[in-house]
């Protein structure tokens, strides 16, 4: 797979000839490439055609459907916001916040903000951002040092890397620029993308 497109790996992904890491790279790429997504989908449809050679076997008699309960991702990042809220209260008191992520809480105190979920092959992640795009606050589950890039009409900007705190990693970016999307990168590979609307 070259840097631009997945190429032959679309068919290899569908037929099952890629290992897990190679599949993750394909998934990360097609999250942002309509042409490759279409090629991958066509390859998947071909494999479905081969699978139909056998009749679908009935599910086991005692099989039950999985329980699709609201996942943890709906709340995990709220912990960070709860911490932010606590520090905002602290900010209103005579002593300013002393935590390392104080700037994020201060920014949220003074702004209207939105949030967007990252999608892709990487960890649970979210970006909270000012509606006027004056700052971005990226929160990633886990302690891996992902780098963060902002992609806009004027190009891609390296925003830095997340740093770990209490089981989550985060990066506050006081950056007055309008990005169309934020990307999490692991080395050269885009693993997650969040669309900024």
């Amino acid at each position, binding site marked *: 797979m070259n840097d631009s497109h997945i*190429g*032959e*790996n*679309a*068919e*290899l*992904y*569908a*037929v*099952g*000839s*890629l*290992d*897990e890491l190679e*599949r993750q790279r394909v*998934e990360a790429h*097609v*999250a942002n490439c*309509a042409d490759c*997504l*279409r090629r*991958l*989908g*066509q*390859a*998947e*449809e*071909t*494999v*479905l*055609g*081969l*699978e*139909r*050679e*056998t*009749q*679908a*076997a*009935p*599910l*086991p008699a005692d*099989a039950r*459907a*999985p329980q*699709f*309960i*609201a*996942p*943890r*991702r709906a709340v995990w990042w709220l912990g960070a916001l709860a911490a932010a809220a606590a520090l905002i209260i602290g900010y209103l008191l005579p002593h300013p916040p002393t935590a390392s992520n104080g700037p994020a809480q201060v920014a949220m105190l003074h702004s209207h903000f939105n949030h967007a*979920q990252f*999608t*892709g*092959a990487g960890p*649970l992640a979210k970006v909270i951002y000012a509606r006027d795009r004056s700052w971005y606050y990226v929160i990633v589950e886990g302690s891996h040092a992902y780098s963060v890039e902002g992609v806009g009409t004027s190009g891609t900007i390296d925003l830095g890397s997340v740093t770990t705190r209490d089981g989550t990693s985060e990066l506050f970016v006081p950056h007055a620029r309008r990005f169309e999307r934020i990307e999490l990168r692991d080395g050269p590979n885009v693993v997650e993308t969040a669309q900024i609307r």
Partner: protein
Amino acid sequence: MALPHVSRIVHSPKDFRVRDEALEAAFARRDATAYERAYQQFGARMYTSALRVLRDKELAHDCVHDVLLHLWRKGTSYSPARGNLEAFLVVCVRNAALTRARDDARRRALLAEAPPPATSTLDADPFEHAHVTEALSKLSETQAKTIQLAYYRGMTHTEIAAALSEPVGTIKSRISNALRTLRDALGKESLR
């Protein structure tokens, strides 16, 4: 009268296949009801795909559960622009099953020694079997051999390259070309 939410109806000698675009869109939005419907509609096909690889009913059904719950928790990487939801799910579960099989040395040996699975534990669909056999006949001898190893025996491209003593790049191109030939031979419309 046009059917709501349905844009593609594919006729085959065996049945009608209808892509439910409302379901596909709801699945992409990570709607719980859509996930339940996807399990109801495609669970048996997903289970069969996992069973072809794992040859164990309990493991195969666990694999279906794990894949759907992983997609649900993680946020699906499916979008209707990708294509057929059933194809996406089948490939997801097949890849998950292959990962399990490759991680298990005993099952890996079983895969390498096993005959093509359709004739062993699963019932062939007479029409589709003839259709696939005819499509496979369009492949060159080397393409057919490579597809046999990649698809039917679940080997990675690096394993195939080692087994055939050929460069990895050659094997990748051959698998890619073979699958594209099969797509044309099977008929693009019938695959949707």
